[in-house]
């Protein structure tokens, strides 16, 4: 171990490696309910070259490597279950290029959502990216790697659909590029080369993303949120359908929650609108709220609550403090939109069973092709009983998501097993072969997506 420490220190420098209890403690914890496991070393490399050397060393020594971005998955995806080297990637935070005309940004893997948001606001006000509902410390690459979604997922799909190219360090230490960049043609498209995209959704078990080219989208002068509300969950899928048909908005989210009381039992839609002029904004409002939803309002089943200019940046951590407890975790199901009512009703039951105020949310992906439905369970970090309840509720919800015909987004170990139990055996076998090909010594983020023989 001493030799390993020295070898790692030689790679990253003495300020950027630790095997002291404080770092091992902090990096053993996920922010959700996953039990902690300590790494043997924590390193924070600055370059792809350093990561390459770390991988070569780890592969040679057959020691686990766990890549970490913002560390905000809440599902324990970067908990070093089998120890090894925890690689904190946040020092790799250079915004290498923003191509205004071709609308993409080339980023190192540690660039945070907040950093990119701010950079674009200050330097490229006509461009924006699909900002996820996570705190600004979440990384762009981490979010794409787990198939995250953001506030442009309704028009443009999963954030992982917005990738133009990747640079990857393989578990065996080779650096590979994917997309147009691989033929030296710049970073503007992922297609139409042979598809070798084997690094998304794998939870860091097939390699480490070191660079990402992310699509950017037009940012209009006025962006804001209109609010609409219904009191019957059975109407929600139809409203998603009607609003998406207009093709007039950005994000569409329906939510319902116990706290504050006015939100309980109701389903609020936040509908993000963007426009370059008041005229455009009014046209969009008219088409959505007068034409598409006007009848519902007149019949008294749905209510329009006005438009507020200015987008609220995510403040998700407030949810964590509802029980004055500093913790929450959620199951994100990728669900058919038609299942909203059942997701809501059954989720509410689970929450009530575990004495947790219910909090659910459905974010539209694509033209209502799917929704990310989240069931959030707050817990009190200082009360083991509430942590136990949240963990149990999470497991029941993992099962519910699959039962209702959906799949689990960024599942933890428990959810991964449920998914693999249901997976087509041939697909599973292919996953196994790919994993063996890329990571012959099984060093990458072990415990995750382990296909049993």
């Amino acid at each position, binding site marked *: 171990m001493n030799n390993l420490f020295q070898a790692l220190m030689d790679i990253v420098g003495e*300020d950027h490696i630790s095997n002291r209890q404080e770092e091992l*403690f*902090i990096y053993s914890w996920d922010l959700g309910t996953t039990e902690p496991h300590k790494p043997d070393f924590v390193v*924070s490399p600055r370059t792809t070259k350093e990561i390459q050397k770390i991988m070569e060393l780890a592969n040679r020594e057959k020691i686990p490597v766990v890549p970490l971005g913002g560390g905000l998955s809440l599902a324990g995806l970067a908990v070093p279950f089998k120890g090894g080297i925890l690689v904190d990637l946040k020092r790799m935070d250079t915004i290498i290029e923003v191509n205004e005309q071709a609308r993409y940004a080339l980023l190192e893997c540690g660039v945070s959502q907040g950093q990119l948001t701010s950079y674009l606001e200050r330097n490229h006000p006509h461009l924006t990216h699909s900002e996820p509902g996570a*705190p*600004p*410390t979440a990384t762009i690459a981490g979010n794409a790697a787990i198939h995250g979604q953001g506030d442009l997922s309704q028009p443009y799909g999963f954030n992982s659909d917005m990738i133009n190219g990747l640079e990857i360090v393989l578990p065996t230490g080779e650096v590979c590029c994917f997309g147009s960049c691989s033929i030296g043609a710049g970073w503007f498209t992922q297609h139409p080369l042979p598809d070798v995209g084997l690094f998304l959704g794998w939870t860091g078990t097939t390699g480490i993303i070191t660079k990402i080219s992310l699509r950017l989208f037009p940012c209009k002068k006025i962006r804001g949120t209109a609010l609409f509300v219904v009191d019957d969950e059975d109407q929600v899928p139809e409203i998603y359908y009607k609003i998406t048909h207009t093709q007039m908005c950005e994000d569409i989210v329906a939510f319902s929650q116990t706290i504050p009381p006015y939100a309980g039992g109701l389903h609020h839609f936040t509908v993000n609108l963007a426009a370059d002029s008041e005229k455009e904004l009014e046209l969009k409002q008219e088409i959505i709220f007068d034409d598409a939803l006007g009848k519902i309002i007149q019949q008294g089943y749905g209510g329009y609550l006005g438009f507020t200019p200015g987008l609220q940046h995510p403040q998700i*951590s407030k949810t964590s403090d509802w029980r004055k407890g*500093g913790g929450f975790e959620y199951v994100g199901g990728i669900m058919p939109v038609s299942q909203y009512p059942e997701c809501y009703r059954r989720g509410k039951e689970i929450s009530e069973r575990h004495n947790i105020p219910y909090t659910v949310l459905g974010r539209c992906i694509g033209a209502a092709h799917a929704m990310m439905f989240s069931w959030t369970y707050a817990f009190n970090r200082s009360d083991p009983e509430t942590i136990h309840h949240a963990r149990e509720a999470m497991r029941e919800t993992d099962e519910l998501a699959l039962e209702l015909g959906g799949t689990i987004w960024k599942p933890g170990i428990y959810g991964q097993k449920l998914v693999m139990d249901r997976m087509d055996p041939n697909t599973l076998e292919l996953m196994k072969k790919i994993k063996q090909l890329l990571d012959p010594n099984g060093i990458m983020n072990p415990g995750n997506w382990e296909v049993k023989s």
Partner: protein
Amino acid sequence: MSLADFEYGDIIHRCFRCGYCKFPVNWMDVNNCPAYARYRMESYSCGGRLWLTRAWLMNEIQWTDHLAHILYSCTACKNCEVKCPLGINVDILNMIRAAKKEMVEQGKIPTAARDFLESIQLHGNPYRIPKSKRGVWMDEAGIERYQGQEYLYHVGCVGAYDTRAREAAKKLGRLLQKCGVSFGALGEAEPCDGNEVNHMGEEGLFEMMVEDNISLLNSLGVKKVITLSPHSYNAIKNDYPRYGGKFRILHYTQLLEKLIEANRLNPTVEMRIKVTYHDPCFLGRWNAEYDAPRSVLKSIPGVSLVEMERNRESSLCCGGGGGNFSMDLLGGSPDSPARRRVHEALATGANILAVACPKCLIILEDAVKVEGLDDKLIVKDIAEIAAESCGIM
């Protein structure tokens, strides 16, 4: 001490470690917590410190030098409190200070912190220089002893002893003389104000100092105080009243602003400089004074004021608060906050980096030298710029 006995035991678990605390207001850089900027490990972030403190109090980890280093690397710059979206934000630094206090009580603090506190106790300053030398600066500048004048000019340890800061202290004194302000200083009788002692968790010593200082000032009939250092300003303004010390307190930039408004200070020498201003934490985030220093600069002829991208509430701390000016737990790296900061200043195109704090003055000037920017950027106190514009060289 167990978690149950910890003053903030009922809230310390409420930090989610979401990481907002690392950012400035506009999210442009994840490095706005000076300790995190320097070390870039989660343990050195605000959330890391809170989680580690809790783990220590719950006996999940043991005290180590490294743990003490992590706690004491907090400069109390208050960026975390500004950014934290939770209701616990008002108590973040109270929690850190309470954890340091527990370390003090157990006698387990970094050596540099112990040396600092010992020196304060023995000599009344962190430099281990005899008290008798504390008045040298004012004799050099021809400043009167305090004898019931309108203002007491409190210069603070750094302004009194550090060669570079003394220049600023003297310039300010001469500037005030020129404006006809009635003031005096205490010289060798001036006590340390205790701001750093407080933020290093030495509560007993701090209380003793405050009580002594209040009775000294009261016995001298002091009603109004001006300070060179925002650190002194903060302690006298926000902590002394709890112990019965009620003084009208001004940071010197606030007084200069008033003097300019009243036409008593008339900077006339055309300076022809491009200036960027670095907000000191104990003037800015701690006391919401962002305008007075800027207003003074703007009133000086030939000053073109440009802002760094991180300014006002978003300002990046130089790394000198919480005793770190003396302990230097954040130095020694290109990632040290002061070294990051001078590059940000340079990027504005300014040739002068203006400060309003003697600690910032020295730390940033050192950073300019280490980064080899001497020929591009000069660090100056606003007092110096204003004095020079009034012909005081």
